[in-house]
């Protein structure tokens, strides 16, 4: 059964987008299906696993818990928009270096959470990193290399 569609404008990875979406359309599905940005993943469908994490106006949110219409005229950043033109963002490079990924399905979500975390605070202890990551689930790595990658990016570990 199809429902009426609404006009939605938003900015995704720096580009203006205009979509027609049903009111029930999740931001996750709008990104993945309407815009083809499949780097954002569906994991649990209920805001527990963090695989669908994106930034809205710089804050990390779970795109499976937001309706697309809730981000009207806001700026959304997905994993595809983190670094420009095939370059690697320092967080992405740190994840590769530390071996902080295996299957990679949770990785975009972890990287977006990390981006928001490091934007908010440059210096973090291991306990703070672990606490900040507790909304993202990784079933492969046991988190150790992810934590290591993030600590390598923070300033206080180098002192």
């Amino acid at each position, binding site marked *: *059964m*199809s429902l009426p569609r609404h006009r939605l404008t938003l900015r995704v990875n720096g580009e203006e987008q205009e979509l027609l979406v049903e009111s029930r359309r999740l931001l996750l599905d709008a990104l*993945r299906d309407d815009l083809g*940005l*499949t*780097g*954002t*993943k*569906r*994991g*649990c*469908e*209920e805001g*527990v*696993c963090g*695989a669908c994490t994106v930034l809205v106006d710089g804050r990390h949110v779970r795109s499976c818990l937001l309706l697309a219409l809730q981000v009207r005229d806001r700026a959304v950043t*997905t*994993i*595809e928009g*983190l*670094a420009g033109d095939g370059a*690697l963002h320092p967080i*992405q490079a740190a*994840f*590769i*270096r*530390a*071996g902080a*990924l*295996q*299957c*990679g*399905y*949770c*990785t*975009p979500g972890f*990287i977006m959470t990390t981006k928001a975390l490091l934007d908010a605070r440059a210096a973090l202890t291991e306990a703070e*990193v*672990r*606490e900040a*990551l*507790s909304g*993202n*689930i*990784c*079933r*492969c*790595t*046991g*988190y*150790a*290399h*992810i*934590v*290591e990658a993030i600590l390598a990016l923070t300033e206080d570990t180098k002192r």
Partner: protein
Amino acid sequence: MSAAAGRGKLTVVGQSLPMLGAHDKVSGRALYVSDLKLPHMLHAKILRSPYPHARIVHIDAERARRLRGVKVVLTGADTPRPIGAIGAHKDEHILAVDKVRHVGEEVVAVAAVDENTALDALELIRVDYEELPAVFDPEEALGPGAPAVHASGNLVREIRIDRGDVDAGFASAAVVHEATYQTQPQYHAPMEPTGAVATIDASGRLTVWAAVQSIHRNQLRLADALGLPTSRVRVIQPHMGGSFGGKLGEDSTHYIAARLALACGRPVRLLNTRLEDFLGVRARMAARIRLKMGVDPAGRITAKETWIHGDNGAYCGLSPEVILVIAARLDSLYRHRNVRTLARLVYTNNPPSGAFRGFGNPQMAFALESHLDVLAEQLGMDPLELRRRNSVQPGDTTIHGWSIGSCELSKCYEETAKRIGGPLRRRPRAPADGAPVAEGRRRGIGIAVAMHVSGARQAADWDGSNVVVKLTPDGRAVIICGEGDIGQGGPTALTQIAAETLGIPPDHVTVTPADTETTPFCFGPMASRLTLVAGNAVIKAAEGARRQLLSIAGQLLEASPEDLTIAGGAIHVVGAPDRRVTIAQACTAHIFRRDGEDIFARGTYDAPSVVADRKTYLGNVSAAYSFAVQAVEVEVDVETGVVRIIRIVAADDVGTPVNPRAVEGQIHGAIAQGVGYALFEGFALENGRLLNGNLADYPVATAASMPTPETVLVDGWEPNGPFGAKGGSEAPISPTAAAIANAIYDAVGVRITSLPITPDKILRALRERGGRRDA
């Protein structure tokens, strides 16, 4: 050179290189099955059984078929061929036929123009069921008058092993202990739920992109299930979002997508929701293990007797193989002389069980390694010392006929004890790090041990791998290989092995995607076989390619190939570095000449193992065995029963670690799954209904659940392994639960014998033993 390449100086093997595909994964470009879309593609949904056991009286799907946008509706009448992961146990169908045997069983499949339409169609389907009596406990299911889950009876498999003189062994023991242990169904929880995209071409030839571990095996099973010649079915593995055994293709997902595509002639995508993934995958089998063991005054095990009831659930999958592993594999960890085992795998109306990392070992390791700690205490012996006195040694033939090649258990014990700060014998305990402990909390340390195969020769008398190494005109290497990658990074190890053999940089080597159409037959990553089995095949292929390369270079340089060496991207005459051609020049010249061709070499390897005898279960099933020792320090809150993990030390014998950081990542991940198995994971089932089929109510370890394990890869060399390597991904999941149980006992003096060890179990045990007790 033999299959196991020599011990010379290694330049690429042993390096912690980034994983293949890492760049695509961190930038969101890696494509998983849920990212794939084809033109004109339909979306599928499944109607599942709400009952644990019921007769299907009638299915009325007419209204669903008439719904606008619905293209096809299939029921069991359309899927009459029996299927099963093991040929001898084909006990299910793609869609239920006549009966449903567990809640969540697939009954009707719909393909429609979009997911919402398919979901709407499910609402319009009426299935009349006649509920049948159901059974949920394997021992009850064997009792008189128990409901028959299948017409063949509820006993799926019975294993009896009797070696030595068990009764005499018990008679000679100084201490005998008997206890019963219970393990729970554990869900793999890959971050990517299972899914498949299927399409047919104009001639009806089927292509399936499936999140499955073993493309070639699943191709065979799909062809059989659909009544098609194998050549009419092509299976391609996209990026896989985790598997851990859950995507070995025991579930029906890819079968249903394929059957729908055949029925409607259009591409069909079927993606499981998280709940459907819980219901569809084959969780780790719940096992009830009664264990009786005796030890002599010197701590030598005199006898072991085991009674096992495995809860198969409603359908088999790979559980008939899992039960044998539970029954026998860990007997080869110690020098047993007298062993008697009776294992029964039993149908129930619980969700079906199957393969999960460790493949039966975690269940038995929990029982065995808990039990050994009790025996050590009763004997007054350090638990590590008890294990040391009984452990197998290199060169041993174990009680089940396994030939132990490399075995560095002694080093693992030594490293573990050193780092955890033993002694491990129970005594009033301060924190190992000297930190103050809050009022009402107790610290404890526990250890446990496990082993695993590196490839296992099971159903068929072949445990091999076939690969091709092709050199491209620009001098790069491609490994044409269908083993695939389930996220663990096995193919990265293969590129390192190829680069080491060829003498070229590892980033000049790639691996093809796993595609049955273009790759030779192989089994895929399972049973920790990839590094050893496929690695040896890669060495052979790379040696062949190297010979072709040196041969053409010899012609170009007018030198004998024996006088040539490969270094720095070129081939030159030994002692005359100026007489050289680049690898690219040689590869190009190999093609562009009369009768030219690519440098293209095949490598095939079959492990020097045997299928265990079907009656006696004797025989060396694997080319090599890996070992894992873990020690865990816990802090138990005696007021709340909450267990906090303070430290984990893990010492592993994986032979040569081909990629140490990747191996370490495997150990970390295995331990995280082991921590969940020990403390909080498990199906909550009520009369076969899953009450916690979501990741909020089924908790898995988070970053805050555990510390970074201290891992030690002990120095080792496996003679059958490529450059001395053997498997490493599964052994370390098995000891964790027992190590934690032993640590909890050490901390608060209560022995919990059922998993998961939740706070309520600890509190109840503390109450039963008469209030709090200081350690």
